[in-house]
């Protein structure tokens, strides 16, 4: 089998986005050739008569349905994606994403509220992780975002975070 169909099969079965280097290792090809084949696949699936797409997520690739098919898919799996983040969780995530690595106190300074329980929830949900400790009195824990965070928001990497004019 050629490179492209092999990649297609891998993008289909994988549960996690697969980075080009990993794909190259699995199929035994050059990463460059893999990237090119991925681009071709991406273009082919982009056609209007296709219901799937090749998405780039958290540094990897995988097959997914197109948004236009969501209504029909949801009929098959009712309420599958009912989980939605609370406003408090979203604001906290926003601060961590843009300010990482960041301490709890720094987050609280921006939000004006205690964030202990929100941080706990976000960690349980694996959206954030402890990214080290700050070189400051008490050596407070520093938080950063995870791959899971990128996946949840459909981001390729942190550079894809919505760019807004920063506060002066």
């Amino acid at each position: 089998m050629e490179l492209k169909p092999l990649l297609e099969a891998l993008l289909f079965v994988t549960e996690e986005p697969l980075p080009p280097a990993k794909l190259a290792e699995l199929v035994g090809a050059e990463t460059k050739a893999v990237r090119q084949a991925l681009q071709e696949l991406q273009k082919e699936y982009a056609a209007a008569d296709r219901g799937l797409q090749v998405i780039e997520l958290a540094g990897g690739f995988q097959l997914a349905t197109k948004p236009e098919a969501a209504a029909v898919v949801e009929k098959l799996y009712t309420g599958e994606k009912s989980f939605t983040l609370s406003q408090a969780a979203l604001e906290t995530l926003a601060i961590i994403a843009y300010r990482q690595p960041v301490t709890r106190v720094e987050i609280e300074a921006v939000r004006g509220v205690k964030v202990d329980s929100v941080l706990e929830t976000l960690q349980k949900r694996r959206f954030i992780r402890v990214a080290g400790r700050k070189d400051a009195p008490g050596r407070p824990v520093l938080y950063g975002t995870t791959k899971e965070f990128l996946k949840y928001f459909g981001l390729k990497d942190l550079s894809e975070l919505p760019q807004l004019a920063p506060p002066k």
Partner: protein
Amino acid sequence: MDLQVNLPVFSGPFALLFHLIEKAEVDIYEISVAEITSQYLQALREMQELNLEIAAEFLVMAATLLKLKSKKLLPETVEVAETEEEEMPVIDSREELVQRLLEYRYFRDVAAELRRCEAAQKRVYIRSLGGKALLVNPDEEITLAGVTLPALLEAFQRLLTERERQPQEIAPDDLSVQDKMQAVLKAVRGKKDGVDFRELFSPQAGIAEIITTFIALLELIRLRKIVVWQSGPFGRLLVMRKS
């Protein structure tokens, strides 16, 4: 009690402050501390009347606002009693309050963008069943059927500890995992109820042979040639051929 509440749920005191500023259609740079303080206190009062739980942070902000307001009235030198919780940041001036509001607004806007990303990604579905069901030649999962790996390793460890107390013998040169795999397969052949894990290790076996046998066992499990069962917690480990 089912209260119809028109007030949105505020994620914190800044969220409430923002709501008030937007409602009053005032530019953040133009806010009057006195004005915003009285509106803030009014909002808290309404929340109280609606029996909404008011988190401590909302009260801290109220105190902060009152302090800022009173500072303007009092001579500079007068110290106002500190009411902040120790870790909460102190806001000492109107300018600082404006800065904090601007910073908060930035992240509130970012959060709104993330909300849009969340909504978009919710419409995209990936397969999440690990592919096994859809493989044309689905392979069975590697299993330690009914026995956990720690249990297996524990049994192995016990065996090693016992044997190490015995005098050591020189390991024979021809010790091979391949041979041990054959030996294990032979031992379990035709034994419908399985063979006791310990029986696979001959009483004369030294450490090297025990390790080789154990590696052979792991290989056979991996190759799905055998399974290991445990009758219950602390029960005997039974090794049997995979049917």
